[in-house]
C-alpha cells in the first residue's frame, strides 16, 4: 500500500512537472479581426484577420495538434498540423496564424475568418480542453487589435486589455519600448549606490541568517554541553592538584626534575588536557597466520 501511494504521489508530481512546459502554457495573446489598408499581408498578398499565440513558459512548446476555433460547439474547427516541425514555439516567443478561412493555405492559416463580437478558443490536442480564449469586442475598430498583457513581473498571468491596441504582430505585447533590466537600472540608479547597498544588505542577511541558525542550533548547545563535563572534572582537577603537590614535595626532597615531570604528566593526564580526540582509529596487531610458512604450506608427500 505504501509503495502504491509513493508511486502515485511520484506520478502526480511527475505529471505536474510535465504540465509546466506543455500546451497549457500557450495563450492567445493578440487578435485582429478587420485589417485596414496598412495591415500586414499574408504569404498570398492578402490582408486578413490574424491570431497571435504566445508561449509564456521558459521552455519550448509544440502546439502542433492543437485546435483553433471561434465556435464553442465545434472545438475541432481548425486543427493545427501535427507533423510540421515549425510548430515548436520557443520560450516567451509568439507566432502568428492568419485567419484566411482556408486551411489548405498552410500550417499557419486557420479554417475560419475572424469577426468582431466573437470569441476565439485555443483547444488542447485532446480536442476537448480549452486552453485559452480571447473575446473580440464588437466595437473594435478596423486596423486595431485586442491584446493581452502580463499582470505581474513573473509573466505567468495575462489579462485582456479593454482598449483597442495598435497591432504588434509577432512582437511581445507592450514590450516594444520596454527597457532591459540593465537599461532600467542605468536610468533609475546611474551611480549604482542603491543596487550596491541593497546587494550588500542581502549578502549580509543571507550569511547572518546562516550564522544565527548554526549558532542557535549547534554552536551554542555544543559549547554549553562542553561546559558541563567541566564540573565533573572538579574531582579530576583535585587529583591534579594533589599530583602537583606531590611533585612539589618530591622536588623539594630530592631536587630531581624527573619526578616533577612525571607528576606534571599525571596532572595533565588526569585533567584530560593532552589528548586529541581520535575516534575510529583501529590498531591492528599483527599475528602470524603462517600463510608464508613453507613447512605448513607444502603438500605432504603422499604415503604409498
Amino acid at each position: 500500500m505504501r509503495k502504491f501511494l509513493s508511486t502515485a504521489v511520484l506520478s502526480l508530481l511527475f505529471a505536474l512537472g510535465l504540465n509546466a512546459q506543455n500546451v497549457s502554457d500557450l495563450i492567445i495573446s493578440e487578435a485582429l479581426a478587420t485589417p485596414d489598408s496598412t495591415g500586414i499581408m499574408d504569404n498570398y498578398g492578402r490582408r486578413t484577420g490574424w491570431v497571435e499565440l504566445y508561449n509564456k513558459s521558459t521552455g519550448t512548446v509544440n502546439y502542433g495538434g492543437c485546435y483553433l476555433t471561434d465556435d464553442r460547439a465545434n472545438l475541432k474547427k481548425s486543427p493545427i498540423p501535427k507533423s510540421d516541425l515549425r510548430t515548436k514555439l520557443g520560450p516567451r516567443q509568439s507566432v502568428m496564424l492568419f485567419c484566411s478561412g482556408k486551411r489548405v493555405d498552410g500550417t499557419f492559416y486557420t479554417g475560419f475568418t475572424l469577426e468582431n463580437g466573437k470569441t476565439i478558443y485555443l483547444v488542447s490536442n485532446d480536442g476537448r480542453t480549452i486552453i485559452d480564449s480571447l473575446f473580440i469586442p464588437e466595437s473594435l475598430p478596423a486596423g486595431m487589435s485586442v491584446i493581452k498583457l502580463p499582470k505581474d513581473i513573473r509573466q505567468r498571468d495575462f489579462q485582456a486589455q479593454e482598449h483597442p491596441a495598435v497591432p504588434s504582430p509577432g512582437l511581445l505585447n507592450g514590450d516594444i519600448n520596454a527597457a532591459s533590466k540593465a537599461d532600467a537600472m542605468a536610468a533609475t540608479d546611474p551611480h549604482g549606490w542603491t543596487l550596491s547597498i541593497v546587494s550588500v544588505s542581502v549578502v549580509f542577511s543571507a550569511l547572518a541568517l546562516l550564522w544565527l541558525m548554526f549558532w542557535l542550533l549547534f554552536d551554542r548547545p555544543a559549547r554549553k554541553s562542553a561546559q558541563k563535563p567541566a564540573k565533573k572534572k572538579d574531582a579530576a582537577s583535585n587529583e591534579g592538584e594533589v599530583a602537583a603537590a606531590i611533585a612539589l614535595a618530591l622536588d623539594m626532597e630530592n631536587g630531581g626534575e624527573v619526578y616533577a615531570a612525571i607528576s606534571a604528566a599525571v596532572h595533565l593526564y588526569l585533567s584530560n588536557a593532552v589528548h586529541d580526540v581520535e575516534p575510529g582509529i583501529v590498531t591492528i596487531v599483527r599475528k602470524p597466520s603462517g600463510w608464508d610458512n613453507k613447512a605448513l604450506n607444502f603438500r605432504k608427500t603422499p604415503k604409498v
Partner: protein
Amino acid sequence: MEHIFSSLSQFWEYTGFANCSWQNLVMIGIGIVFITLAIVKEWEPMLLVPIGFGMIIGNIPMFPGLNIGVYEDGSVLNTLYQGVKQGWYPPLIFLGIGAMTDFSALISQPRLILIGAAAQMGIFGAYLLALSFGFAPNEAGAIGIIGGADGPTAIFLSSKLAPDLMGAIAVSAYSYMALVPVIQKPIMLLLTNKKERLIRMPVPRQVSKKEKIIFPIVGFLITAFIVPSGLPLLGMLFFGNLLKESGVTRRLANTASGPLIDVVTTLIGLTVGASTQADKFISVKSIGIFALGLLSFVIATTSGVLFVKLMNLFIKNPAKKINPLIGNAGVSAVPDSARVSEVVGREIDPSNHLLMHAMGPNVAGVIGSAVAAGILLSFLG
C-alpha cells in the same frame, strides 16, 4: 611551374605567418608568461597552464572560415567553449569544490561567516567604480564579480550579463587569484599592527557528523530561498558537500572532487584561454577590466581585514578576539587566501597557526560570492 607557384602562394595565405598581427604575438607572449609563472613560481599551475596554453591556441593566426577557431560555429573548440558560454562548467566546478570542502571550520565558529560577507564589498566597490568609468550596469556587474575572487562564478555571471567581456573577465579573475599572495600581503600588513597580528584565536570545537550533514541542506535552503538566481552555483556547491559528508555516497563524492573537477578545470582553462583571441581581446575595455579587477581584490581584502577589526571592537573577552589577518580570507580564493593568512601570521609568531581559522571565512566567501552573483543576475540579467 606557374601552377606550382600559385599553389604555394595560396598555401602561404593559409599559414599563420601570412595572417599574423602584432596583437596575436602579444597574446601569445602573455600565454607564455602565464605558463612560465605557473611552472617556475608555481602560481596556480592548475589554472595558469591551461589558460596560458589556451591563449596560445586561440591566438595562432589563421585563415578565417576553416571552422577551427573558438568563435566559429561547430568547430571542436567552439563546441568545448559552449560549456563556458552557456555556463555549464562553473556549476560542475562548484560541485567538485563542494565535494572537496570541509565546512567544519565554519560550523565550529559560525561568527566567521560574516567575514565572508564583508569581503564581498570588493564586488560592489568594483561595480561602483566600473559605472563611474562609463561601463553599462550589466558590464559593471560582470566586472565587479572579479572581486569575489572566484573564477567559476566570474565566468558564470559574465556569460549571462556581458558575454563579450567574458574572456577578459575570466583571465583577469584567474590571474589575480594566482597573485593573491602578492596582492593581499601588503594590504594586511598595512592595516594591522603587531599586537593585532599576535592575537591567538581559541581552538575550534570539534564538529559532529550530524552538523556536517545538516549544514549543506540548511545552508542551501537559506541562501537559495533568499537568492534563487544563484541556484546553479549554490545548488551544486551544497550538493557536492552533501555527497561528501553523507558518508554513503563516497564514490560519487570522489568522482566529483577528482576526475570530474579535473576534466572540467582543464576544459574551462583551455577554452577561456582560447577565447582571448587578439581581435576580440585587445581593447581599451580589457585594460579597464584588468585595472578594475585589481582594485576589486584590494577593496575585498581591505574590507575583510577592517571588518574583523570592527568585530573585535564588540568582542569584550580577549580570549575570543579574532586575528585580523584572517580577514583577507573572506574572498573565495580557496585555499590560497587562507594560506596567505597562515604565512603572514607565522612570520610574526611561528607558533600561531591561522590556517584552520582562515578556512572559515574562506569557504564563507565561496557562498557569499555565489549569493552576490545571484543578486547581480536578478537585478541586471
